[in-house]
């Protein structure tokens, strides 16, 4: 086959990706010579929508930024709001929040194991891990009332309490899951085809990980010793003991080991939380109007460090909410990792950073097709651009807006 270069698109629609993003690979034979990443396909305007809703409504909106790490976004947002308002969440509330956070981490890592198995053609691992994931989802449904998008938080604490008859069920589920996870660790370390596919792939040295800003298990597998739960404790983590799993393999195999290790640590944490659960109220009353101020809050989501910035202006609606998801930090590393890689490794390398593109897309960039220039527009520019574009098509909104205003005022 002639070794000329040709371009192959992985995405936006591709069986390897669970969510749309565009990775344009330039191949020579099976080797990748160049890679272009374009983001923005899952942009839904959540940050703008947050400004038009009250804090209580925003809680549920921010929760739906992502389906798998929904509790992470919700807790991170609420922590920022509570810091601005100066609220002190009671201990029991913090412990329950941490319990749900660890259960979510278990659920997310089991999901990742299945997806990684599917990307390398090992469907049996997918079926087994997702069968075990049902156990943790049933527990979450029991405690929070829903299997995803838990809605457990409220400003000032949590909404629901963990009752005494739920606790034995939680512990029994954790025992079952721990036994199965030990089996998966055995499979991961001893199955030779898995090691062949995952080792030596997606290499990222420690210096590159720090320079490119990788977070979460992606960075911890390269020896970077960062974990927000230990460095900047939030919730109940200040009073719990756990190990931060660091690995030195610096490739996809290392990331698998880090996530498996984190699963075992999560089981330990859940048992500790249940043992140390203090008595008391689960929330404090929060005011409807949050005083003016701004706060940044950080959270260790299953995928890495999640950062939220909230600015309030004294009313009951926030002025600005900014979400920086962990995948945004990790996706810049993908292009670096796939340089001089093989086409066959692309799905597993992209899957190894545990991409959640719904979390990531908070901005779109516009590329001019003729000149190839890329620029960004801010909100007033975007608005004028939209109005002019429709005017060129013959649709003018100014009359329509006047009529709507009249209608609304007459009602």
């Amino acid at each position: 086959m002639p070794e000329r270069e040709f371009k192959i698109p992985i995405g936006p629609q591709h069986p390897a990706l669970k969510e749309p993003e565009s990775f344009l690979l330039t191949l020579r034979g099976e080797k990748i010579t160049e890679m272009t990443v374009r983001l923005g396909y899952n942009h839904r305007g959540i940050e703008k929508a947050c400004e038009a809703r009250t804090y209580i409504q925003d809680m549920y909106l921010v929760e739906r930024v992502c389906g798998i790490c929904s509790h992470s976004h919700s807790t991170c947002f609420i922590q920022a709001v509570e810091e601005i308002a100066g609220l002190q969440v009671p201990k029991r509330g913090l412990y329950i929040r941490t319990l749900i956070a660890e259960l979510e981490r278990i659920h997310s890592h089991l999901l990742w194991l299945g997806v990684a198995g599917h990307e390398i053609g090992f469907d049996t691992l997918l079926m087994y891990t997702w069968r075990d994931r049902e156990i943790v989802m049933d527990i979450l449904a029991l405690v929070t009332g829903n299997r995803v998008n838990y809605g457990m938080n409220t400003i000032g604490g949590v909404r629901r309490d963990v009752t005494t008859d739920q606790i034995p069920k939680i512990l029994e589920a954790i025992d079952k899951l721990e036994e199965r996870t030990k089996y998966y660790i055995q499979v991961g370390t001893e199955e030779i085809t898995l090691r062949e596919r995952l080792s030596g792939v997606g290499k990222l040295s420690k210096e590159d990980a720090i320079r490119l800003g990788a977070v979460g298990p992606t960075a911890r597998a390269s020896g970077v010793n960062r974990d927000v739960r230990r460095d900047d404790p939030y919730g109940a983590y200040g009073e719990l003991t756990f190990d931060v799993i660091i690995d030195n393999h610096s490739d996809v195999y290392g990331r698998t080991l880090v996530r498996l290790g984190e699963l075992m640590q999560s089981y330990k944490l859940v048992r500790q939380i249940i043992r140390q659960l203090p008595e008391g109220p689960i929330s404090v009353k929060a005011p409807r109007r949050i005083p003016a101020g701004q706060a940044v809050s950080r959270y260790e989501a299953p995928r890495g460090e999640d950062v939220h910035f909230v600015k309030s202006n004294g009313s009951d609606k926030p002025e600005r909410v900014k979400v920086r998801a962990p995948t945004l930090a990790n996706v810049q590393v993908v292009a670096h990792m796939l340089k001089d890689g093989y086409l066959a490794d692309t799905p597993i390398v992209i899957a190894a950073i545990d991409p959640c593109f719904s979390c990531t897309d908070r901005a779109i960039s516009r590329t001019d097709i003729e000149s190839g220039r890329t620029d960004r527009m801010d909100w007033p520019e975007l608005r004028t651009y939209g109005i002019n574009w429709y005017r060129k098509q013959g649709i003018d909104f100014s009359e329509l807006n006047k009529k709507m205003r009249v209608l609304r005022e007459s009602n």
Partner: protein
Amino acid sequence: MFRPGKMTAQVLRSLFKKPATSMYPFVKHPMPKDFRGKLRFYQEKCIGCKMCMRDCPSGAITIKPVPGAQKKFMAEIDLAKCLYCAQCVDSCPRKALEATADYELAQLEHGKLKVVYGDQTGGDTKEKT
């Protein structure tokens, strides 16, 4: 020692075990008691303060006075817009709303997704779909 086919023992054992698939819809999977499904409205407790409307993230619930009756209110819930977050249940000062464990809410027509509670004057809280 690395060998291929580490999962052989488990896989062969699964051949003779019962499959983990549950045969929905012939076998229903009941949700736990506090599951946040379809809402239920108690007309006799509602005082018409509309706190639920103010706190709903998606504008799914509307409280309207029952025409011709004094201090009676009816609730219209759009099941398509509802997030099933149960914030209205928490916000209501009189506990007039409750989340049931009903989750089989699919319909073939969009109009059937609007549920109205208690619009008969002086009647009981029968839902009308």
